[in-house]
């Protein structure tokens, strides 16, 4: 099948080494600085709050939004994380999840709206999303180290690439799901396109958008171990050091903490979606 010799490898390397790194490094540096101070800010904020307060807030939220069972689970989960002495690592992981989720939503929701409104944009966006979700993580993990260095920033970028697509897709779906007659009726009464979006389509799409955000959070958490491979602090690095020293107990201890956080965040965000 080798009819033409395609030197994609060479081209890419030339592009990265010859242009991207030397010419654009200033640009990437400034992104890196901004992101890293964002991550630090969030991390400092949630680690400065006493664990007991965070635990109580989470339990109350779980109770309000997901019922008594989940509140009980949250209580036990928080006690577990405290008892295995992983609270600080958990908060570091949660900070990266929060930052990547916020960035995913900031990008994802508007892009989702745009692709719901224009089939042309949808045609362009869709393959990009497929690309983001299926390209093996390590393919873009390594370049993101080259561009942003080690630490939390490339971890957030990599997490964003992997976790943003559901936010885009579910936003688009949510808007397209608004019944045709409701949209027609709104137009017939003279809504501007802005009014149609903000007074009708978005409010009705919010449960679906929330389901997308919930998926984004779950995917972000699932990236925790991978993110720690490129130097992100948190539960991932606990698991990673457990694996690398064949310390099965340590691996399980960190892994369980990830599962606990995942379940708590999933049930609470699902509850938000259902309440709206």
């Amino acid at each position: 099948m080798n009819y033409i010799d395609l030197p994609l490898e060479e081209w890419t390397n030339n592009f990265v080494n010859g242009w991207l790194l030397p010419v654009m490094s200033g640009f990437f540096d400034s992104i890196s600085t901004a992101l890293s101070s964002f991550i630090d800010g969030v991390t400092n904020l949630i680690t400065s709050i006493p664990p007991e307060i965070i635990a109580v807030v989470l339990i109350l939220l779980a109770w309000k939004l997901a019922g008594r069972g989940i509140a009980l689970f949250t209580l036990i989960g928080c006690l577990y994380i405290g008892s295995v002495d992983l609270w600080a690592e958990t908060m570091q992981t949660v900070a990266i999840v929060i930052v990547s989720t916020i960035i995913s939503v900031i990008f994802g929701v508007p892009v989702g709206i745009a692709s719901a409104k224009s089939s042309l944009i949808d045609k362009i966006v869709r393959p990009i999303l497929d690309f983001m979700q299926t390209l093996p993580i390590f393919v873009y993990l390594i370049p993101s180290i080259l561009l942003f260095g080690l630490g939390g920033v490339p971890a957030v970028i990599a997490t964003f690439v992997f976790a943003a697509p559901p936010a885009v897709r579910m936003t688009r779906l949510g808007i397209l799901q608004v019944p045709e007659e409701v949209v027609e009726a709104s137009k017939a009464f003279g809504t501007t396109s802005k009014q149609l979006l903000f007074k009708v389509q978005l409010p009705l799409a919010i449960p679906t958008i929330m389901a997308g955000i919930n998926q984004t959070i779950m995917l972000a958490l699932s990236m925790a171990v991978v993110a720690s491979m490129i130097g992100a602090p948190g539960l991932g690095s606990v698991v990673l050091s457990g694996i690398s020293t064949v310390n099965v107990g340590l691996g399980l201890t960190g892994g369980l903490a990830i599962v606990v956080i995942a379940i708590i965040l999933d049930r609470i965000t699902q509850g938000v979606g259902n309440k709206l």
Partner: protein
Amino acid sequence: MNKIEVNHLTKIFGSHPQQGLKRLKNGEQKNGILKKTGMTVGVNQASFAVKPGEIFVIMGLSGSGKSTLIRLVNRLIEPTDGEVLIDGEDITKMDKHTLIETRRKKLGMVFQKFGLLPHKTIMNNVAFGLEIQGIEREKREKIALETIEDVGLKGYEDSYPSELSGGMQQRVGIARALANDTDILLMDEAFSALDPIIRKEMQDELLKIQNKLGKTVLFITHDLDEALKLGDRIAIMKDGKIVQIGTSEEILENPADDYVSNFVKDVDRSKVLEASHVMKKPEVLLSYKDGPRLAVRKMEEASVSSIFVTDKEKNFKGLLTIDDAVKAYQNNISMEEMLITEDVYTTSPDTPLNDLIGIAANVKYPIVIVEDGKLLGIVSRVSILSGLVLGKEKDEVESI
């Protein structure tokens, strides 16, 4: 001036509508265009005008283009060709801003599936049209509350649409359209999703509202009975074309083509037809001055057993039977004394046929149609029944 005027309005769905338009104007048919180009002709050069205060019904089966047509009127769908004049202004040429203003101020709309906003209360649904115009909360809620009361939903202001039955939801739909106080109401199969009893109730309500507020209503339906009941005039659509426009009587009596006559074949004519539509001239008439002898002769010639008697001004006087005429002749009694007046049922020409069916079964003689005392014609039981079955065709049969 016409409230709505639609001229040569055409909508072609597909990739090259202008090409399809050219074919249409060359007289090609909807099916041919679909086969050759894959494009669907939604509405084909429709023209009609709606007068102020009129209920104009567009009726057709599904796929006839009626729903597309009503959406072209407020430009929810962009037309391919033609014009739509709302109060003389062509909505198809308006810029975005003017279009939105026209929709807000002039065109209310009611939808088959209601199209209510599920996340808003009934109050906020009804006030929605005012809200998007930027009318302050207090004022718009006052108007909304009055309108909610008008449609009989007082007490449901804080409910959500999903908590209401279909009929109540459509009342909200109507209230929402009324709250904007537009002159024109566009109603797209507004009652088709409701069950028959509620539908009838809503039809009566609409007539009442229209009577009170004098709205101009463009009403879409696939139900001929509904069209006949509501419509001052009816347009019948087929394959995107308007095939006939007329009053209920005109359409029932003179269907424009086979399609329409097929359509109206099964109509419950008794609700639509009036006495004047089925009455016949009495075969023989007797004037006062004619004596009983002539009466007997006339009856013999026409081989009938009774004869209607009028005076010189054609005022109806009574009925004379052959027995009485013979008796009068033999005993030299004056004809006036022998006239039957009490057993003869008289009524006005606009009496619905429906009302006559029961009467005709119980009277001995044909019903006499009288206007200002003058005899116009007679209605026999046979002519009522044949009118119900055949409509106007009956005359054709007779003329052969």
